[in-house]
């Protein structure tokens, strides 16, 4: 991977991490409304996948969508404004954290309904196929989401229609407060293979591993061979939502994943070891990210607020 690309990937990982770490702090002030699900720990999956995509490829995200949207090019400041509920946010303050979308970037929306996304990705893949384009439509799903009938239906439909969709499964060990080992019957990987598509496995804490898997999935689609899946196990650093007391998780688990499954540490170690990036380059990238996050929060705080009449905008009929 060339140096610019590598530096960009690192900055993306770092941006998502710091965005989420900062939100965790800002939410405690009470300024941000609603429920927020942080993506910290899982960055290598979003970035590993989206670094192979361009604006004409589609993604369909989840309730834990900040990382996917930033990795796919969603504007960090406009996203922050949305999370703060400003009219300058990506969805004018109507959607919030769980419903960020940016159609110019191929982001067909974060989704508050677990399992709501994969069928949408199949539809986008049908559009790609009918237009004869060489693009892909990616859906992100969690271990919990993998148990929805809609996800099974979507995978089967994609296989039947041989459309270029990629089903990414991020197994972070939990669906809310329930462990994946309890809720996922059988083996998520084998279940997915059972639909008759290849499943490329990746280490969800390793950007390069996810990137390689994505390259294979895209090659498969571009060769006209239809859908495939990517299966990645990854850590979830925070609770299910900000404020979750996490009684179901041990302190050991939480410190262990920060120590041993940190995609930033893992990437840094690799690029320093093979001398593809320098400490100074990484430090500069870090500084830029920290400034961007600061700017985003400052801008979001100062951004215009909606007024009551805005409720009636963006509807086709009003009674």
């Amino acid at each position, binding site marked *: 991977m060339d140096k610019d690309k590598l530096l960009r990937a690192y900055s993306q990982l770092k941006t998502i991490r710091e965005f989420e770490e900062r939100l965790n702090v800002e939410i405690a002030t009470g300024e941000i409304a609603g429920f927020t699900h942080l993506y910290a720990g899982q960055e290598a999956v979003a970035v590993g996948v989206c670094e192979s995509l361009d604006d004409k490829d589609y993604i369909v995200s989840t309730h834990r969508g900040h990382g996917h949207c930033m990795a796919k090019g969603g504007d960090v400041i406009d996203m922050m404004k949305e999370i703060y509920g400003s009219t300058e946010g990506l*969805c004018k303050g109507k959607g919030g954290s769980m419903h960020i979308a940016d159609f110019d970037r191929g982001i067909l929306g974060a989704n508050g309904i677990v399992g709501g996304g994969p069928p949408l990705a199949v539809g986008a893949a049908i559009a790609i196929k009918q237009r004869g384009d060489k693009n892909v439509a990616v859906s992100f799903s969690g271990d919990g989401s993998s*148990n929805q009938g809609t996800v099974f239906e979507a995978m089967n439909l994609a296989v039947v229609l041989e459309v270029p969709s990629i089903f990414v499964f991020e197994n972070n060990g939990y669906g*809310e*407060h*329930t*462990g994946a080992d309890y*809720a996922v019957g059988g083996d998520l990987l084998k279940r997915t293979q059972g639909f008759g598509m290849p499943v490329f496995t990746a280490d969800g804490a390793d950007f390069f591993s996810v990137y390689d898997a994505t390259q294979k999935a895209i090659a498969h689609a571009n060769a006209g061979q239809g859908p495939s899946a990517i299966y990645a196990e990854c850590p979830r650093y925070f609770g299910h939502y900000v404020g979750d007391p996490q009684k179901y998780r041990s302190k050991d688990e939480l410190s262990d994943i920060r120590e041993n499954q940190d995609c930033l540490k893992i990437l840094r170690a690799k690029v320093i070891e093979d001398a593809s990036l320098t400490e100074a380059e990484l430090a500069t990238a870090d500084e830029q990210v920290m400034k961007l996050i600061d700017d985003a929060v400052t801008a979001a705080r100062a951004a215009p607020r909606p007024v009551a009449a805005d409720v009636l905008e963006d509807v086709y009929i*009003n009674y």
Partner: protein
Amino acid sequence: MPIKTYRDALNEALHQEFERDERVFILGEDVSGGQAGSAGVVDAAGGIFGVTKGLVNKFGVDRVIDTPISESAIIGAANGAALAGMRPIAELMFADFIGVSMDQIFNQLAKFRYMFGGKTTCPVVVRLPTGAGMNMAAQHSQTMYQMMTSVPGLKVVMPANAYDAKGLLISAIRDDDPVLFFEHKGLYNDKCEVPDEPYTVPIGEADMPREGDDVTVVAFSRSVKFAIKAIDKLQEEGISCDLVDPRSSSPLDEETILESVEATSRLVVVDESPPRCGLTADIAAMVASKGFSSLKAPIEQVSAPHTPVPFARELERAYVPGPAHIEAAIRKTLA
């Protein structure tokens, strides 16, 4: 009498009914919580709103069943268990997820008794945290009960206070027919007097939390609380209102509403759902056809706008019909 929250009143009803009838069990996402977690704790959640807290410790995992995220299977399994003689309670984490399980609710559960010629009943209770107020946006804030009210074969219940929450939930569990039980998220922390012992509140009988002469106000779920605020304020000016809380939209206590309108001649109907084909329209139509001669003024409907629920604080506040909207409607009907 002891004071309890709406949440604790529901929790107590569940404990008491689990104790009374061995056929009662509950299934849903994180109703205990913590299965296969690294801490090895069950009852880590007790439902995300804490309504099922402590049940698993007392009644075990066979009767307090954590499910995968599979709403169709949750409702379908409850339906099947009911047909096979059990008394299941299914919990959907948010009422909005009715969308995922719709077939099992309206083509299966609602149909069995009638479609099978009265040979079976299907005693399922579906518990549904409902409504706006937490800035959870379009897919986690809907009332949903107005849609369900249009389905024959379902009872649709929405307690507005802790006392009714307990009594109606016990009635729902003992009912032989399907009951969709809507718990407003904005009421879970509200308190009132709630007896310790089990009791029932009959489904289909309205409550009258305020009595007055000038206007009849009909309100559902959390709107009852907002109507009380508006009515108490107007009382200081000498305007007095009947407040009818039907407590269930199906069956609907038409008689209490009509009697009140006969006495006051004016009607304001309030609900947090959108206006079209909703509860305010339904009740306005019922009174217009059955109580027209009592009316001295047009019926006022106070509802949410015909839009999805927006996220930002300012927008959600404007979306939910509150005390000020209700007060304005009462004044208008008197003007």
